[in-house]
């Protein structure tokens, strides 16, 4: 992900002002600029394209509804990702907490790791499946932090802002998330990572 934060923030304020006046063009520009970041967060979280696209749609709808609450001086991207994060949590609660649909992928136990390429294990498709399944087993906050750090490539400071927690908490939760992931992945690889 190429991030061009510098200079962007100055323009974003004028764009936001125009969105406040219901400027369609400005809204489309902002959507264009940030859609991938929102998608990346949502997809990493849900590991599902349709869910991620739903979240993107909802996030921008909510952005439009609440744009009046955005104050100059705030970091727009963090503000937007905060909306996306909240939607992800809500969406997850509504759609996944009760049903077992979430594990509709091939059960992790059935994945055949014996067939994986010994020389290049990380690019086997089953390994991705294992990581994907283990990621979903993490607690919501740990998963969000792991996703934001590794796939959105956000800094701790930004994650702290988006989640509304302290820098130290982000750091320790990230550490816990990695440790838990390693613990979850290890049995399936037959060795410790």
């Amino acid at each position, binding site marked *: 992900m190429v991030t061009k934060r510098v200079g962007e923030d100055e323009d974003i304020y004028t764009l936001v002002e125009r969105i406040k006046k219901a400027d369609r063009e400005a809204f489309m520009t902002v959507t264009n600029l940030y859609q991938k970041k929102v998608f990346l967060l949502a997809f990493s979280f849900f590991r599902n394209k349709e869910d991620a696209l739903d979240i993107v749609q909802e996030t921008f709808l909510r952005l439009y509804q609440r744009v009046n609450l955005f104050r100059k001086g705030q970091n727009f991207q963090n503000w937007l990702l905060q909306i996306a994060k909240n939607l992800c949590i809500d969406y997850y609660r509504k759609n996944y907490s009760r049903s077992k649909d979430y594990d509709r992928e091939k059960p992790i136990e059935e994945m055949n790791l014996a067939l994986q390429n010994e020389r290049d294990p990380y690019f086997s498709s089953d390994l991705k499946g294992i*990581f994907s399944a283990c990621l979903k087993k993490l607690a919501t906050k740990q998963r969000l932090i792991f996703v934001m750090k590794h796939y959105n490539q956000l800094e*701790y400071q930004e994650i702290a802002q988006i989640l509304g927690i302290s820098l130290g908490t982000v750091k320790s939760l990230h550490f816990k998330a990695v440790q838990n992931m390693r613990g979850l992945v290890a049995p399936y690889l037959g060795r410790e990572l």
Partner: protein
Amino acid sequence: MTDCKKFKKDFVAFLSQELEEDERKLLQSHLDRCPDCKREMAQLEEFMKGADSLKMDIEQIMGEVDWEELPRKITENVFKQESAFPRESWLARLSRFLFQPRLRPIYAGLLLGVLLGSLATYFILRAPHLKEAKSTQIFVPANFIERMELEMARRETLDYLEKSQYLLLDFVQSPSEKSAEFWRSEFASQKARELLDKKRYINPQLDKYQMAKAKMICDQIELLFYELSQISVKLSVEEIEKIQKLIEEKHILLKIDLLKKELGKSEV
């Protein structure tokens, strides 16, 4: 080893390039010295690379999305919804928040509480034991009041007789010259007038309780005082002597004494 434990907490941050420069250098120098930690770090790095395998997955999925079309679709949807549901003002948002369906049980509970509370208050305030006493009526038997009134009349009469007796004694026992002077004085006539007033007050009581004997004597005394107070100013010594004699003849003082004893004996 405690050093290693402390450093291990920073491994993830180290690989994520989130450590401050001095922290990073400190950890690096530890890694150079500690083979255990170095191995641990290598394993962690390998794991992180494994986690990166998902990135390729993400990139592949992202390649499938039409990023040109998506903003147009989103914008269209948002503005379509917007025309159907115009952007909310803060007031609308507040009312939406206050009237959201999931708060309904809370409102129902509150309403029920208020209702029950007011009902309870209503019934407690209506309860008879808290009602204010209507008045401080005292019920006594009818004859009790009668007896009380009789007793009052008796005492009033006794009082009247005693005072009259003193005044008459003053009048009778002193020589006629002095007596005339005495009656001329303001003091005596005032006393007499007071006694006349008192007689007027006890008259109905004497009538009511049929104290005929007492009434008779009291009437005589009254008449005497009436005359005395009426004519005292121009009384001559002879006239006074006549009156003194009259009093003695009629044994008024003796009658008063007898009556007093009689009234004092009977408690009623």
